[in-house]
């Protein structure tokens, strides 16, 4: 398939998908269409009563006040009703568009939750946010404003066409020429302009991405006094985004006036042709029975209707660039929805109810990118209740092993089994439920401390939560806060230190009863006094569980059943503390380095 075909197919896809959202709300949409028709009709009736009122002013017997009064009352009735209806229409459209975009946002977010970790590793947070805010917003303004306008336009265009047909068929020929001209020109221009709008949406996404990235580092930036440099880099991206805005607007600016010109030219032709036909009708060249025959009143009416006819076409070309931006925005939204989610569980995926905790890695090979191998044929066995410690220089692939165990990534070859069942054949949710983990990167969300601790087990009672916090030695601190457990953690807030955050995540882990435990530098931010204080609780947590530990602390490592020494993606040494020391390899060197 050529690129051109693809892009036109994509465009149709976007249109079809957007229409689907609208049609799914068909009751509201139907009401909107009906209201549009009725309020249009009413707005046509108002002038009729005013005409009647004026006629009543000019009767042969002076002003007929009674009739004037009656028609005036009718007018008031029409206008009040029309105002009411158009308000109702506005509210209906508002609800319609709000439902649609709330649904879109929801779908996008829910989709995000199903995406593999690699998506988040390769997409800027700000860009994701931009899709959910700017892009969805752009779709919103088109849905709520332009949809009604298009509907009204259709109604007016068709109606006027019918009337014009009745008045003079030859004069319609003018539109047979000019309307296709407008359509062709619109098509040609929109093809040209569309990539520009896509670029604009993309650039806005980049702008958001950069802003988000730098705001995250604002403290560092100000500590280094780099505000100016970062700002100038932002300016570069900002200028690019604004340039994309300008180019899109610049090129789109051609369309509306040109269509307007075509319409005005057809009006001119209508006036000339109408005048000439009228003349011929007057002097008898054209007979009254001929289709070319026209009266002066007929010309006047035709002109009025052709203005009505042209109006919506003008309007449409005017809002076309809004529609174009909405399409580009929708494309970006749909792109997220079309992302490949984490592979679904195999159809015959097994449930994992009671897990013993035997974990086995067999010749596992993995790289984040195809060309760079991080783990090379790694094999490890951890029996129920055993502790496996992973040591080695940073960047050796320790955390990667954890990623594979949790199936954040799947190995390129080899397999991992839990209780003898390959983890690929387990339901992901079951598999992950079998693990309990505390990571180096502490993560808490903007809820209360209580919610954050209970996060891993929603059915935890308050007493269990307090007990977990006590065991993690964070209970006293929490209670010293003015709002205690109800303290809302603010993002990037200062009300809590990183070490305290880590203790909260440890408390969270204490609540879990999962049979396999992962501790990835679990206490790296905790001071050693506190660490010792929570040591007993940690030991209790590890009891009877299969544990994978990445740590510095020798005492933890020393007692492990198996120590893996990882370097450059391969397991260099494997064994117990004593056997490894006897071997005199890398572990031996590392161990003795502390004594200088």
């Amino acid at each position, binding site marked *: 398939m050529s690129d051109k075909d693809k892009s036109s197919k994509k465009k149709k896809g976007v249109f079809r998908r957007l229409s689907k959202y609208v049609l799914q709300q068909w009751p509201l949409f139907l009401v909107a269409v009906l209201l549009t028709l009725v309020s249009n009709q009413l707005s046509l009736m108002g002038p009729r009563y005013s005409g009647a009122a004026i006629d009543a002013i000019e009767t042969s017997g002076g002003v007929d006040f009674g009739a004037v*009064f009656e028609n005036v009352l009718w007018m008031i009735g029409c*206008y009040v009703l029309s*105002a009411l209806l158009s*308000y109702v229409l506005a509210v209906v459209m508002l609800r319609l568009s709000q*439902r649609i*975009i*709330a649904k879109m*946002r929801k779908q996008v977010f829910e989709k995000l939750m*199903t995406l593999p970790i690699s998506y988040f*590793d390769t997409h*800027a*947070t700000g860009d994701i946010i931009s899709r*959910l805010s*700017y892009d969805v917003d752009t779709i919103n303004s088109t849905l*709520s404003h332009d949809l009604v306008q298009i509907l009204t336009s259709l109604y007016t265009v068709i109606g006027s066409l019918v009337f014009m047909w009745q008045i003079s068929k030859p004069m319609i020929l003018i539109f047979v020429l000019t309307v296709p001209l407008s359509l062709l020109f619109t098509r040609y221009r929109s093809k040209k302009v569309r990539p520009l709008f896509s670029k604009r949406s993309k650039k806005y996404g980049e702008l958001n991405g950069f802003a988000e*990235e*730098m705001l995250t*580092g*604002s403290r560092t*930036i*100000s*500590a*280094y006094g780099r505000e100016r*440099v970062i*700002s100038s880099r932002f300016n570069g991206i900002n200028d690019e985004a604004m340039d994309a*805005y*300008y180019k899109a607007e*610049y090129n789109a*600016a051609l369309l*509306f*006036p040109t269509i*307007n*010109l075509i319409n*005005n*030219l057809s009006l*001119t032709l209508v*006036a000339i042709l109408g005048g000439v036909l009228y*003349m011929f009708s007057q002097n008898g060249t054209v007979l009254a029975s001929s289709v070319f025959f026209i009266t002066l009143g007929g010309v*006047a009416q035709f002109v009025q209707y052709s203005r009505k006819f042209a109006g919506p076409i003008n309007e449409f070309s005017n809002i076309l660039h809004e529609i174009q931006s909405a399409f580009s925005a929708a494309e970006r939204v749909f792109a997220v929805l079309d992302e490949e989610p984490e592979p679904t569980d195999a159809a015959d995926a097994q449930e994992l109810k009671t897990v013993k905790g035997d974990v086995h890695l067999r010749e596992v090979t993995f790289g984040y990118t195809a060309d760079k191998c991080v783990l090379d044929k790694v094999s490890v066995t951890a029996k129920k209740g055993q502790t496996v410690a992973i040591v*080695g*220089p*940073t*960047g050796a692939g320790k955390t990667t092993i954890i990623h594979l165990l949790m199936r954040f990534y799947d190995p390129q070859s080899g397999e991992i089994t839990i209780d003898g069942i390959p983890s690929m054949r387990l339901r992901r949710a079951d598999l*992950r439920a079998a693990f309990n*983990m505390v990571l*180096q990167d502490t993560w808490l*969300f903007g809820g209360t401390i209580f919610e954050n601790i209970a996060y891993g087990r929603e059915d935890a009672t308050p007493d269990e939560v307090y007990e977990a916090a006590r065991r993690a030695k964070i209970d006293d*601190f929490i209670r010293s806060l003015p709002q205690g457990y109800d303290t809302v953690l*603010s993002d990037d807030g*200062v009300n809590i230190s990183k070490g305290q955050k880590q203790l909260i995540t440890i408390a969270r882990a204490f609540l879990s009863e999962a049979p396999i435990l992962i501790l990835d530098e679990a206490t790296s*931010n905790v*001071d*050693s*006094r506190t660490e010792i204080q929570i040591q007993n609780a940690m030991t209790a947590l590890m009891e009877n569980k299969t544990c994978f530990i990445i740590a*510095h*602390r020798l*005492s933890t*490592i020393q007692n492990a059943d198996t120590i893996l020494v990882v370097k450059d993606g391969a397991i260099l040494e494997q064994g117990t503390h004593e056997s490894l020391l006897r071997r005199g390899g890398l572990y031996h060197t*590392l161990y003795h380095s*502390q004594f200088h």
Partner: protein
Amino acid sequence: MKRIWMYLKPLKRRIALGTAVKVFGTVAELIIPFLLSYILDHVIVTNDVGTIVGYGVLMAVCAVAACVGNIVANRMAAKTTMLFSAEMRRELFSKTLRLSARSTDRFTIPSLESRITTDTYNVQNFIGMMQRMGIRAPILLLGGIAVTLLMDEKLALVMIATLPFIFAVVYGISRKGVPLYAQVQKSVDGMVRVVREDVQGIRVIKALSKEDYENARYDNANVALKKQETKAGTIMGIVNPVMTLLMNLGIVAVIAVSAYFVSTGQSSVATVIAFMQYFTLISMAMMSLSRMFVMYTKCAASAARIASVLDEEEELSLCKDDGNGDESFSIVFDHVSFSYLGVRDNLHDVSFSLQKGETLGIIGATGSGKSTILRLLMRLYDADGGTVRIHGRDVRSFTPEERTALFGVAFQNDFLYAASIEENIRFGREIAHDAIVKAAKIAQAHEFITAIPEGYEYEVSTGGTNLSGGQRQRLWIARAVAGDPDILILDDASSALDYKTDANLRAALVKELPDTTVVTVAQRVSSVKDCDLILVIDDGALIGCGTHEELLATCAEYREISESQMGGAFLE
């Protein structure tokens, strides 16, 4: 809104020119219907093909003029909008970066982010639309009113009488609308917050299979946003129907009154009919004004949010040094107390002095206030009581430039951004490649960088997710060292380094940066034990101060920490 108009000021001439072109185009366009009705009323009856064609050509000329005028004017408008919003966003962003830490905490990052993005887009949209559509409507409105006044001032006045009501309605609704849209933007902040958090915590969410929980949490924010937008839209939706209704009632009144005038011979039916025609024009103008008005309300709410950032007190104000300091001390804390939230002292009456050329170590329990000492030292915050001095001078007397030139800092949880490793170390400063390499060597990062095929050109992903924890820390340290600072601050910056690498780092710092005052905050005694002065902090108070040996003798807590760590030595 006033604050935002300022950005239009420098574009005055451009706007004036654009407006002139737009007026020209609009007038040319408005002449067409007049010509058309003239042709119908007067030309066709002449039965002269030449005259008809002649007027037709005139119409065509007007049509072309309108087309060209509008294209040019709209393009100029796009340019103006571009220049305006680029400048506004530029200032907003750089202002955001210059905000004090306290202000940043108060605004919160998600909110600052949406101010830079969605709020500026709202304002930008309005400015763009106003130029494109905001010229025609007033011309139609004023022109229409003027013509009707000329035709029959009494009838015109009847119609004009509705205008005060219209303005009253518009004013009333706008007073309600602006806060409503401010609320909408606040809900946007809320939504952004959840998305941001969840993207950052996606591993934990997946590990705990909390996708449903997060979906529900997001849905709360989503529904709140939907509610706010519906509420604002429902109120603002009143504007258009009420405006149209009032205008229509005006014309009804005109007809009723004209009946009386015609009966007394003061007016003619022909005038009333012509009046109706113009009235259609006027009410169309009102429609388009009402749409702009709704946009304005939204824009004003966003503009206020932008302005509140721009108007925020930028830096902590500069104070004069009292001259009581002693220059032989590089760092002095004199009875310093501080509280983040004003509830409880996070730091209470801390005093210590560090001689020139000495190194400082800070150790203490999690949350005891170690990082707070650093923040006060760098004046990210001002102390509530007491004085912080650097080289004998009150920190509050340093200009921001002087201050930042002093420090190199690796924070506990620092950041890396999408750029090459070299660029992440350089961080926009003017530092030669050799100096970058030297810094990386000191930070023990050179080895792993050169092991990557791309070396220093290796592209770091946002947040440094393609590097390990220890690698990230070493890049932060390299960044801090590369600027050759007076004071190097390492805030628990080597926690992910193995014992040996950490020791190598310490040795390299001593050897390569002999004149730099190194301040180390750490969990490990081994990281600070060689410091000339070690502070032991507990619950915001200084409970021990001295060298390793002194503290072992005098400070029970320090001894306890030390023994526990030496007993359970570290290994990686």
